[in-house]
């Protein structure tokens, strides 16, 4: 129940003092890593035989009520084959620029997860190919809503919020060009490309 995940000794061997702290909570192992090594460590966890954490369950962040506590970015990874989970965290000082490396190159699914953390907490994922807001609209100017210093009702008056919302063009960033399948054609899986070439639409086998 309270056992530390078996991956830990190997992770310590590989990364030494980049492993700052290890905690066990409700049976889950939490590894605190140094920011500059977190990308290497996650790549190692994904690619090393015997580890194979091939599935990124979630990327999120936690800010605590106590201002002196750091903001934590959390990666929850899972090995689908071995059926084990691991939680990796990086503590960021909120007084400094919030930056962590993106893991988009390891898991494509990190794309929207990292955009959400950026949108809500203002954490910048360096190396992300398209880091922009995903939940709030892109011209949203009030800040990062899940930060503790963000007032519940936002920074602007209701009239200003309404004015800015009405001024937004809902189609500005979701144009047909952007959503065009022709543009994304070369990124589609091969079998889908074959079906589209034949003009065979929406037929599921």
């Amino acid at each position: 129940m309270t056992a530390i995940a078996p991956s830990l000794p190997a992770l310590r061997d590989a990364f030494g003092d980049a492993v700052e702290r290890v905690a066990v909570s409700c049976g889950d192992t939490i590894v605190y890593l140094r920011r500059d090594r977190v990308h290497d460590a996650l790549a190692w966890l994904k690619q090393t035989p015997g580890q194979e954490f091939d599935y990124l369950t979630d990327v999120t962040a936690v800010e605590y009520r106590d201002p002196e506590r750091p903001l934590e970015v959390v990666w929850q990874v899972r090995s689908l084959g071995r059926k084990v989970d691991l939680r990796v965290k990086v503590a960021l000082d909120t007084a400094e620029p919030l930056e962590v490396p993106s893991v988009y190159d390891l898991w494509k699914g990190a794309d929207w997860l990292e955009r959400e953390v950026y949108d809500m907490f203002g954490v910048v994922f360096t190396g992300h190919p398209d880091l922009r807001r995903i939940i709030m609209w892109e011209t949203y100017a009030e800040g990062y809503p899940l930060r503790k210093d963000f007032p519940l009702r936002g920074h602007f008056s209701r009239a200003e919020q309404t004015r800015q919302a009405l001024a937004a063009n809902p189609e500005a960033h979701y144009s047909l060009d952007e959503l065009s399948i022709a543009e994304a054609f070369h990124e589609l899986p091969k079998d889908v490309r074959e079906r589209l070439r034949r003009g065979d639409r929406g037929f599921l086998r």
Partner: protein
Amino acid sequence: MPAGADPGAVTAISSISPNWVTTRLDLLTNWARANSLWPMPFGTACCAIEYMATAASRFDIARFGMERQSFSPRQADVLICAGRLPFKLAPVIRRIWDQMPQPKWSISMGACASSGGIFDNYAMVQGIDTIIPVDVYVPGCPPRPEGLLYGIRLLQKKIQGESIVDDSLRDEHLVGPSGLFLPAERVDELSEPFGNSVSQTRSG
């Protein structure tokens, strides 16, 4: 008249089925409008579930002339906002409202659409009447189908009191030069905080 027919019978028939009636034009148009409202459902939350129940067989808004759900705003008469409206959807509902042809009406269904409800936060419009004009507010969280039906009946009653010569009823209420549908002070006043948010300071 065919030969041999009784002239008295023809008189009797024409007196019980006249080919014309006299009425007030307002009465006729309002009767037609009120009883053939085509709803444009704008369902964003749990109110939309109650709206679906209202439209389904047990409550059946088809009884009130709403047989056709108009999922295209250009063929709709009444916009029913069923659910909370985030700021991100404000320009969308505004555009849908602008696309609806006159005469048009709107129903704000539920506490959140009418006032923001429990969502007194950064993301939510505090009442859709800051975005579009509203004819009937239906309270409830969510309102039961009976509540929505009562609101629809109220709207029908309102329509029956309208006059086709009164152009002010058909004002478009377009967004003004300030970019707002209502004056800024009215929006702030309408969305005054209540409950737990009263003590929250606003930073500017």
